[in-house]
């Protein structure tokens, strides 16, 4: 298999293989989990910038009522591409990047189980990103349906829609291969003595997320393929004119879509479950019940999908079923918050940047969970569906939830990746600027939604002006704050205080037994686990 295995333990650590390609070919041909993790993270950040620029176009247009900068058609394209790029191009690859970097080091494996497939999983992403961004420039422009791609609109649009469909196909393939790789790595490559129940929580959340991805990405692929055949091959799955049913698409999409939100949330839970114990200097409260609760959250995420469809015309019994189910499953999610709070209880806490982002996650994700509960009430949702309240809800769970957790992860592991400490002062600035501007951008959207402002519309009634201006102001602040993040990361890569093997006093786990920066090849010989080095 890999040359690294042949060399054995006597081989000096470091990237000095004579047969190792240099320059760009190193990155194109690499099968090293650390290289691939790095590429995932940079790809994710690039997409974050592209999707962020689109968000700022949206917010600029919404600064005032009336149409100022863009045509309504283009506004819709921005809405669509922003959603697709952020979900599939920024957040998901970021956590796959963390998985690539950290899971082999956490479980004492030399690399991912399928190192070449890993390379392919990554290199599928740039073509998909290019398809999505290039679709803006084709005749008719990009898809303007929103990231949910609902028919009949998605059956009517131009070639930009086909490009979006192919991009989703490719991204789905990448996700499926990536998750097969992660699941296999976790199940087969753990160091002797690392039983499943001693495994770090981040690995557990990814194991479960991997299964979720394998279960639902094919469903999404099926849904968009049916749109494709409706568009070009004369089928009528979703076209009422041919005997099909547009609502069928919504059911299929959300059968993927609700588990998808947990695909995004669970690895974020995993990160926070490492950061909070490290900076509270206490083991994670209720490790085992956390594992079981995360598994059950994943399982029941399959039975609530139609809470996204309360107003499409369901029988009352259907509405009631999905309302009760949704409300009930919020219980295990809420208990996770309790677990993290209990971990901090009487801990000796310090507030370095990773901890700040983890706490930001904790507070704001909880707000997002609460507004989710509000929305899960059918009678309330009939009013709030497709308003800015929903936009506020999912930005609290996806940005202040998943993205803040990703920031926590970067600051927490950056010393291990680069061998340097990041600039703590600038990191804290990044946190506070992000936290404040995020809330300025998104909290007023609750009020806008409650007052009835619809989402995905470039113009609005005059009475919504003030809160929209506040929101736009915050959005630009948030966008600019992320340039500071880029600067901090680049600065850390280029130099800085030398990082110890374990820069965080309270951190536990095998990854911290390795030197910083982690050598190119690690754990070529499985480590010997002492009692203490089990899980984080």
């Amino acid at each position: 298999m890999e040359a690294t295995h042949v060399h054995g333990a006597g081989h000096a650590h470091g990237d000095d293989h004579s047969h190792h390609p240099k320059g760009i070919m190193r990155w194109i041909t690499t099968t090293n989990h650390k290289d691939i993790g790095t590429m995932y993270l940079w790809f994710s950040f690039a997409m974050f910038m592209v999707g962020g620029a689109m968000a700022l176009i949206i917010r600029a247009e919404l600064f005032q009522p009336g149409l100022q900068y863009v045509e309504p058609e283009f506004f819709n394209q921005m809405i669509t591409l922003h959603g697709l790029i952020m979900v599939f191009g920024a957040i998901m690859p970021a956590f796959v990047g963390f998985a690539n970097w950290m899971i082999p080091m956490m479980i004492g494996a030399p690399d991912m189980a399928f190192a070449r497939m890993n390379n392919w999983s990554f290199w599928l992403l740039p073509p998909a990103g290019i398809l999505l961004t290039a679709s803006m420039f084709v005749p008719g422009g990009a898809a303007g349906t929103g990231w949910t791609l609902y028919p009949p609109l998605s059956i009517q649009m131009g070639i930009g829609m086909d490009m979006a469909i192919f991009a989703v196909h490719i991204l789905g393939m990448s996700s499926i291969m990536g998750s097969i790789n992660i699941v296999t790595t976790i199940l087969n490559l753990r160091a002797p003595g690392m039983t499943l129940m001693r495994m770090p929580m981040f690995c557990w959340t990814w194991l479960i997320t991997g299964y979720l991805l394998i279960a639902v990405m094919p469903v999404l692929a099926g849904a968009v393929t049916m749109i494709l055949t409706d568009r070009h091959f004369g089928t009528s799955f979703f076209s009422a004119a041919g005997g099909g049913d547009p609502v069928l698409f919504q059911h299929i999409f959300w059968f993927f879509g609700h588990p998808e939100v947990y695909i995004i949330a669970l690895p974020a839970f995993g990160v926070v479950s490492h950061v909070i114990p490290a900076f509270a200097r206490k083991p994670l409260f209720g490790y085992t019940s956390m594992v079981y609760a995360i598994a059950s959250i994943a399982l029941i995420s399959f039975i609530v999908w139609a809470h996204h469809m309360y107003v499409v015309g369901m029988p009352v019994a259907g509405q009631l079923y999905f309302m009760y189910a949704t409300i009930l499953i919020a219980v295990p999610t809420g208990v996770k918050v309790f677990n993290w709070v209990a971990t901090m209880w009487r801990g000796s806490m310090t507030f370095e940047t990773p901890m700040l982002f983890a706490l930001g996650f904790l507070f704001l994700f909880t707000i997002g969970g609460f507004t989710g509960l509000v929305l899960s009430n059918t009678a309330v949702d009939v009013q709030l569906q497709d308003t800015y309240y929903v936009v506020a809800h999912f930005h609290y769970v996806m940005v202040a939830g998943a993205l803040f957790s990703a920031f926590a992860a970067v600051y927490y592991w950056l010393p291990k990746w680069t061998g340097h400490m990041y600039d703590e002062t600038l990191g804290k600035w990044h946190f506070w600027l992000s936290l404040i501007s995020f809330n300025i951008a998104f909290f007023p959207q609750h009020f806008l939604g409650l007052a009835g402002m619809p989402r995905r519309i470039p113009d609005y009634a005059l009475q919504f002006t003030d809160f929209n201006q506040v929101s736009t102001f915050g959005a630009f602040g948030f966008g600019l704050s992320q340039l500071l993040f880029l600067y901090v990361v680049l600065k850390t890569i280029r130099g800085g205080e030398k990082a110890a093997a374990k820069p965080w006093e309270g951190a536990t786990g095998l990854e911290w037994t390795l030197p910083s920066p982690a050598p190119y090849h690690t754990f070529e010989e499985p480590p010997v686990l002492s009692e203490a080095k089990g899980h984080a």
Partner: protein
Amino acid sequence: MSGGMTMVDRRAGLLQALRTVLSALIGVRHRRMHDEDSAGLRPIQVIVAGVVVVAVFVMAIIAFVQLVAIK
């Protein structure tokens, strides 16, 4: 590991798997009770119990909806 195949052992396994799954749905549990239950439980038992419990959960909600939605 129990590994025994007597009736008593298997019934106990089922009960433990159910208790494990139900407490997972709530989300918190005493470590001692967890340790007692998980000794001798195989993952497949927990997974099967989980799927069964979710199926029962769905049917219970449907039954409750039938009850309250009767015209």
